[in-house]
């Protein structure tokens, strides 16, 4: 097709598209060019902390920690590499590429994914920033609102935890509708 090659990505982040495009057309290995494009584009967004939803310093969890998820998939082989809840390593898509290229597995998660990354040369460092710490402290000061707990006591719609299970009938609620362009997977 006259439109190939092509690079596309979610959200108005053209710097990621451009990084992917540059990697695609300049790759020395045609067998890995599209994978290189995905890795380059996602890495650019991780470094730029795109809208605070990618990379370090965003979306702190209830403990104030930023963790990262990433996936890279090869459409020729249907091979893939992924990381979930990766801690203290900034380049999540790079670790996912490592899982793809250097293991027979599909996904590594959490602390042990971090251990794998560090063993393979990735730098271990805090993913917190002044911004993410401020977000977390502001959330705590507002009685931990919003949050994703249901059916528990104390009432998660008005109180912080720790929470304990409650009767399903007494304290159910609908999903919070908390997804926005600045808060999404």
């Amino acid at each position: 097709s006259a439109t190939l090659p092509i690079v596309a990505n979610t959200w108005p982040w053209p710097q990621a598209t451009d990084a992917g495009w540059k990697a695609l057309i300049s790759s020395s290995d045609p067998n890995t060019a599209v994978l290189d494009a995905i890795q380059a584009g996602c890495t650019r967004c991780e470094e730029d902390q795109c809208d605070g939803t990618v990379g370090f310093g965003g979306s702190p969890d209830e403990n104030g920690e930023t963790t990262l998820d990433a996936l890279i998939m090869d459409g020729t082989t249907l091979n893939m590499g992924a990381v979930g809840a990766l801690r203290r390593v900034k380049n999540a898509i790079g670790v996912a590429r490592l899982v793809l290229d250097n293991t027979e597995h599909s996904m590594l998660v959490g602390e042990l994914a971090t251990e794998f990354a560090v063993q393979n040369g990735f730098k271990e460092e805090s993913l917190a920033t002044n911004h993410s710490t401020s977000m977390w402290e502001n959330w705590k000061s507002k009685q931990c609102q919003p949050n994703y707990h249901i059916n528990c006591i104390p009432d998660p719609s008005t109180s912080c935890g720790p929470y304990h299970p409650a009767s399903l009938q007494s304290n159910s609620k609908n999903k919070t509708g908390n997804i926005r362009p600045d808060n999404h997977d």
Partner: protein
Amino acid sequence: TIGMIAIDNNGKTAAGTSTNGLNHKIPGRVGDSPIPGAGAYTDDDVGAAVATGDGDVMMRLLPTYQLVENMRQGMSPEEAARDALNRILKRYSTFEGALIGVNIKGEVGAACTGFENFSFCVRTAKSTNTTIHSIPCV
């Protein structure tokens, strides 16, 4: 989340995602992004798809797998994205998210819901710059 698709001149495809997830999530929570068929999926025979939005829902309905399979059945990328999105909305009427699909001819389609508009970026051999597209959501 960024979801990204790349297809080369020979029709070789790849897709990927990277995210820090939702604000104030329960520690340990993982969304759709690292799960194939949820955050991203690709098959050189058909094309590729990526998703963004509420990952706790998307990881249950595998919309990018559905989008790619819809294209395999002959739908355009836009039709395939709308159908995959409607399958989610049938079960989760307040779902918020967006899908992009690209087939191996380089045709692009997208669909979204819950946001006012959804923007995405495309760079092809036909243009010298990246183009930002914006679509209204249902």
